[in-house]
């Protein structure tokens, strides 16, 4: 049997002292001071890092401000270059779309048979092209495009002349099928009549006053020329 203990202790709990060599009343201020110093060092490190970052930000801001004007100039130059390049491209497209007929006419003059008088050679004007940007509506503020891009124009050649009979005209049309002309003219016979080239628009009696007394005929033949492409 374990007897219960009887302890008549006259000492208050608050009067008991620590036997530890390092007393709590000494340790607490030291620990508190160390904690304060630690906090100060930590705060100092943070402040230093903040100041460093702020200085870097200021430097970067000044650098950006210094380069802002240069950047604007570069952007302007890039815009100018882009505009110029667009113009050059457009001019290149125009140049590529250009069709020359000098050689054709020189060859034609030497191949016109006797009995045929050419009255008119006409390349009809193509319909006006829309130079509005895609999706834009016409208005005063809308800047038109420099020219058509990636479009294809159908070019036709109309030959009008007089003759006494039909053989010289046939000879002329035969001679125009020569390879020296086919780089300019398109010969397409086995196609529907509206897309055929050449296509005889008319061949009739000349009723003009200048032709009175002579049995003259007027012919009107239309040829398709090679397409005019606006592309680089």
């Amino acid at each position: 049997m374990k007897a219960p203990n009887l302890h008549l202790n006259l000492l208050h709990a608050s009067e008991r002292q620590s036997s530890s060599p390092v007393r709590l009343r000494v340790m607490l201020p030291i620990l508190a001071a160390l904690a304060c110093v630690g906090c100060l060092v930590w705060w100092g490190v943070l402040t230093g890092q903040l100041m460093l970052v702020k200085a870097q930000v200021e430097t970067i801001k000044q650098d950006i401000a210094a380069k802002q004007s240069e950047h604007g100039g570069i952007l302007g130059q890039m815009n100018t270059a882009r505009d110029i390049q667009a113009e050059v491209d457009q001019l290149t497209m125009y140049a590529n779309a250009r069709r020359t007929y000098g050689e054709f006419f020189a060859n034609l003059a030497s191949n016109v048979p006797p009995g045929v008088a050419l009255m008119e050679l006409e390349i009809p004007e193509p319909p006006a092209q829309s130079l509005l940007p895609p999706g834009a509506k016409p208005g005063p503020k809308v800047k038109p495009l420099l020219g058509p891009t990636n479009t294809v124009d159908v070019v036709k050649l109309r030959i009008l002349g007089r003759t006494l009979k039909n053989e010289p005209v046939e000879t002329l049309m035969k001679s125009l099928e020569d390879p020296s002309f086919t780089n300019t003219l398109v010969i397409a016979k086995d196609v529907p009549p509206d897309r055929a080239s050449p296509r005889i628009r008319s061949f009739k009696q000349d009723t003009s006053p200048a032709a009175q007394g002579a049995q003259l005929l007027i012919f009107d033949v239309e040829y398709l020329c090679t397409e005019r492409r606006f592309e680089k």
Partner: protein
Amino acid sequence: MKLQLTKTKTIEIDFSRLGGGRRTPSDVTGVVLNGGDARGCPAVRLVHKKNGWNVLAAGFVPAPVDPLPETWDAANKSHVAWSLPVEFQAPSAALAVLSPNMFTRQTTPDALTADLVQTAPKASSGAPPPRKLGVRRLEKKPAAEKTAEGAAEKGQELDVKPGVPAQANGVRFVMQPLAENPFVIQAGLPEYQIQWLAHLLPEGRRPTACSVQTLPSALLASLCEQPAFNAAGGSAFAIFVMRTTVYLAGYKEGKLLLFRSCPGVAGWEMLREGVKLRLGLEDEMVDEILDDALIDPRSAMEPFVRPILQQLEISLDYLVSRHNLRIDKVFIMGLPSGARYWSQMAEESLRMPLIAPSVFDGLVLSPKNKELAELTPSKSQAFLAALGAARAAMEGQA
């Protein structure tokens, strides 16, 4: 800390239970102060381990340079720090004090109140003097002490919690209920002596005081680990024969039931003196004669022992009549010599032998300390109060 939520509802928070409270020490040195032993202050270092209670050291340590103060002025004077030898440097020390101003008594709360009211006019003489420069400041009175003092002055019943020190009329006291209601055991010392004792062992050095007890109250815990006491189921009687006084204590199932000091009897010092004069012995021979069977010293002891045995008989009769408690084991503790003759005289008059065990029975003695093994049961009695003080201070380790 008390928090008043409403007019009628109050909650109390005990911060000491939230991990901030002090733990019960498991390594304590018990020391007897002012015991009057020329060899020094008896000290015992007691440690509670898994294998039980271990006595690491027992011996006499040099007494403090300054004597126990008798006045506030003496207590306020700076004193020389007291340090114990290495083997007694446990973390905590339990001081058992023998003071002419102390008291340890069995009483009732009503008697205690009446006693304090009677002594109230003397309060001014026990008050601390004004503080002087260069004098260590003594601590202020806790609120509980003021309450007790005020209640005593008004003649009201004291509201003193068991085990919690209170103060009245310059005396600090503590009480614990006994097994028999409404009796309590009360012990007290002058406030200035307790504050002096609290600072006697300097802070920051081993040991520091964790307990201050009166010497009689320290004796009461010394029986706790006795195998014979535990074998009797804790129902036994004990005669504590000290240097100048004799105390009687009755236990019922390990709980203290009765405590009193024998009136009109002297302690073993007077008995030795009487034997010495009656038999014409030298001082060094007295203990040998009392422990020897060659010469029967009972005739010389009779005048001293007989009144104590009569008091023992009265006490045993009281336990039988009042509590129907028949005691068949009576311990005699504290005697440095002659226990055998005490037992023979008790057997003759009461038909009841006295048991005089070694103080360290039931405890594990440290094999490293060879002096412990040399302690005879008679010699070990010098450490009775020191062991009791240490055992009592380790109250949570039972």
